[in-house]
């Protein structure tokens, strides 16, 4: 990996004028490089290794044309789609949900289907939908829905109804289309890696906050610190026949690369060195989206990004107390992220997909049990803004009294791969030819 990074560094016209400017950031590629260099020097001191090490990280960040970015936001636990897009015009809705039904007087209309209304907490999505920036799947799922969190989530993560698949659908895409030396191409902005990104081959990364990726070791400073940090990578690059150890070592090499790439995002005190042009809500989830906006604006080579929303959507009980806040927290932060991208001139380059492993049972007590079809949204300036599949209505439920799916998550993935990432979905999604290709991206 070190060799590959060095190659990329050699190919880089490092700080020459005339390089493309990341649109709207107010920070040219050149000034980003210079700023990075300055900050990294402040971090590491002008020792004999700092500059060379830095160049490798920045090289990867700056070479090549900016790629499109797909951001996958997961609502863990099975989000109740009927609390996001409420079927207030369906006569059975109030019957099935005597306590949890959303009153028809609240929320905002959903133009494509008069039976549905955006709930108040989903106002952020409603706003973006009104601007034509949200493609809506009102009842997405798959045949023979599995009501286990883990199995159903696994299906969505691997992009197949295969309980034994080992790699994520985005991981498989990166294996086929990604780079051998850029862990940030697949980034979980979380404390651990999303299974959807799990690759067989290429490096990917998990980072909770870019400003935090520093290493302090007591009693180790210049001139020993930089060689020690390099040795993390050296130890990682050692060959071994044990696949478990090989996996552990691979992570050490990724740590080495990501450390170099993220150095510019922290002040020497470990605080964020970036700003947002908009004000984000005060939540972990929103802070991670703010960091993502800044990393994209700085030209880091991100391609597929996953984030888990805050909140717990497994609302078996007490749904009315917790769900509105969790839906609002998610939707408000997503709206702010979109405004951030627009302010930075990055909106044409980023598409968000918002999903959960299933919806919930129409019939309820104080909460709702695991259901089948749920909702998903594809959000962004380039989103087609269409409705994909119809709301199936509550008059006819499936054999388990759950909402029937009118669209398949694998069809959504095929369209995202082909229309957004420009890649043949047959190489990623098993049975791709058997699925529709809903229009998710504006032509």
């Amino acid at each position: 990996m070190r060799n590959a990074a060095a190659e990329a560094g050699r190919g880089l016209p490092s700080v020459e004028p005339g390089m493309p400017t990341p649109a709207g950031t107010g920070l040219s590629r050149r000034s980003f490089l210079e700023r990075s260099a300055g900050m990294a020097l402040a971090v590491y001191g002008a020792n004999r290794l700092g500059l060379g090490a830095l160049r490798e990280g920045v090289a990867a960040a700056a070479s090549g044309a900016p790629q499109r970015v797909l951001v996958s936001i997961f609502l863990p636990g099975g989000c109740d789609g009927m609390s996001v897009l409420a079927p207030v015009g369906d006569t059975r809705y109030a019957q099935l949900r005597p306590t949890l039904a959303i009153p028809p007087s609240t929320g905002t209309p959903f133009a494509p289907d008069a039976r549905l209304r955006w709930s108040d907490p989903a106002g952020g999505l409603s706003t973006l939908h009104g601007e034509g920036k949200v493609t809506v799947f009102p009842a997405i799922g798959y045949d023979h829905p599995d009501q286990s969190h883990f199995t159903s989530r696994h299906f969505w993560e691997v992009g197949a109804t295969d309980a034994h698949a080992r790699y994520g659908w985005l991981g498989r895409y990166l294996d086929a289309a990604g780079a051998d030396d850029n862990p940030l191409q697949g980034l979980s902005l979380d404390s651990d890696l999303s299974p959807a990104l799990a690759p067989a081959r290429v490096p990917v990364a998990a980072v909770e906050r870019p400003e935090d990726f520093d290493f302090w070791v007591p009693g180790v400073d210049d001139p020993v610190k930089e060689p020690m940090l390099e040795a993390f990578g050296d130890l990682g690059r050692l060959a071994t026949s044990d696949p478990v150890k090989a996996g552990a070592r691979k992570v050490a090499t990724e740590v080495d690369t990501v450390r170099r790439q993220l150095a510019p995002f922290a002040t020497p005190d470990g605080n964020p060195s970036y700003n947002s042009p908009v004000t984000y809500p005060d939540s972990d989830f929103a802070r991670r989206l703010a960091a993502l906006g800044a990393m994209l604006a700085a030209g880091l080579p991100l391609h597929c990004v996953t984030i888990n929303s805050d909140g717990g959507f497994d609302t078996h009980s007490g749904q009315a107390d917790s769900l509105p806040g969790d839906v609002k927290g998610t939707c408000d932060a997503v709206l702010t992220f979109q405004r951030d991208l627009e302010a930075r001139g990055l909106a044409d380059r980023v598409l968000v997909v918002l999903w959960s492993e299933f919806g919930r049972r129409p019939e309820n007590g104080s909460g709702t049990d695991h259901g089948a079809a749920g909702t998903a949204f594809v959000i962004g300036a380039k989103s087609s803004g269409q409705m994909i599949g119809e709301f199936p209505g509550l008059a006819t439920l499936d054999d388990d009294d759950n909402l029937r799916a009118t669209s398949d998550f694998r069809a959504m993935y095929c369209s995202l791969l082909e229309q957004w990432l420009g890649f043949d979905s047959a190489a990623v999604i098993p049975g791709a030819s058997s699925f529709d290709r809903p229009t998710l991206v504006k032509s």
Partner: protein
Amino acid sequence: MPPTLLKKRLRRKHHRQHARRLRHARRHRPRHQDEQVFVIEPPAQPPKPKPKPKPPPKLPPPPDTTHRNAERLLWRAGFGPRPGDVDHVVSVGIDAAVHEFVYPTGTANLIGPEPRDEDGNALAPEDAWGHDHLWWLDRMVRSDQPLAERMTLIFHDWFATSNDKVGSQRMMLDQNATIRANALGSFKDLLTALTQDPAMLVWLDGIENRAGDVNENYGREVMELFTLGADRGAYTEQDVRELARALSGFDADWVDGSGWQNFRYVPRRHDSGSKTVFGQTGNFDWQDALRLLLENLYHASFFVTKLWGYFIPTPPDGATQAALQKLYVDSGYGIAPVVEAILKHPDLYADRALVKPPVVFNAGLLRMLGRGIDTSAWSWLGDMAGQHLFLPPNVSGWDDSTWLDTSTWRGRSMMVTYALEPKHVDPWNGPDYDPAEDAVTAVSRALVFTGGPTLSTETRNTLASFAGSCLPGAMASWQQSPYRAMRQNALRHLILTSSDWQAS
């Protein structure tokens, strides 16, 4: 604010405070950066050269197989060796050592100083955030019956219950005691105890499950995750619904200010109608439900496969699998006999490593260093490394196949930082570090300091080459000692973050 968010925020704040404290300490350490080096006066008294530098010994030979197998057992059945533990296992042999692990005499003793926070206060495990984690970590570090703690950890993962929803550290600790009491006993007793355990009844909505308003949460997970396994043909969706009816009837009272109280079984909340589960029909109640689960033909294989997976990364061969299932059923769902057989099995001593769960890694660091719990940092460091006790990510527990990624690797590195901090060699204050130490001696000393772990040849060689190249070619006399002190600190950190220490 939802309690989850509040907790996350507190945790973050806590982490930030610690990070600030450390960074403050770091900034106030003298002569920290190159540019300062040139303006700061050399020490008034240049360090005196040692009269007779010792001749450089060779790297000691790597530990032999007996030693390595002893280490393996101590890590897989417990939380790694304390000084002297490896020698003990080597002297009594693996079989006798396994017997000591599985059948200890009397109650467990906690050896060493009582756990404290960084201000010297006793822990408040039922009340203070993170102190539940510290309380249990302390048992892992100090108990003289480590397998009981390891099995409790395994069943905490197996029956993963999170305080995120339970909302009571006291109830979580009560559940922990229940698991510990049954961890090497009968799985039937364990399952029976946990089905009516208050934390579990809240976590999987047992108290919401009543006649006429069936809640399937426990019914589903007890089959999928606790006894039978998904996608094996062991049960149908209809079985989930019917079993949930059989499990109905538990209740509790919510008391504002003190939470759930008065857990009990209320016969009129039980759905007393006829149910059909696994093709058998009857007026089943919750104890019948557990019996049906344990008698299900898929249960013994599920139990053995799952338990084996906690100890050995490759699946057992067919004969071993069958023998273990027989052992389990013949012993009346006995856990200890199966664990004993697994710990003695040659596969446990094969080459393939297992990544240590973060709390095992953490407890092992402290055991190796002979250090007790003297800071609350371990709770948020556990978060960073991907494992906060009593807060598993979901009901399927932690995913053992994904412990390591760039984020959790950094968390483990931070654990090593915090573990080594009190004993690090201060390059600038304190006694001079050996100014003539050569690279090989430096590595040997770092290996001794870290308990003489078995490292692969390639790792040892890379450490030696780092030690030989990390210092500037020419050093002023005043740099000789402090830079070598830094090298020693770096070597210790590199050993303990190496793949050979993280996975073994």
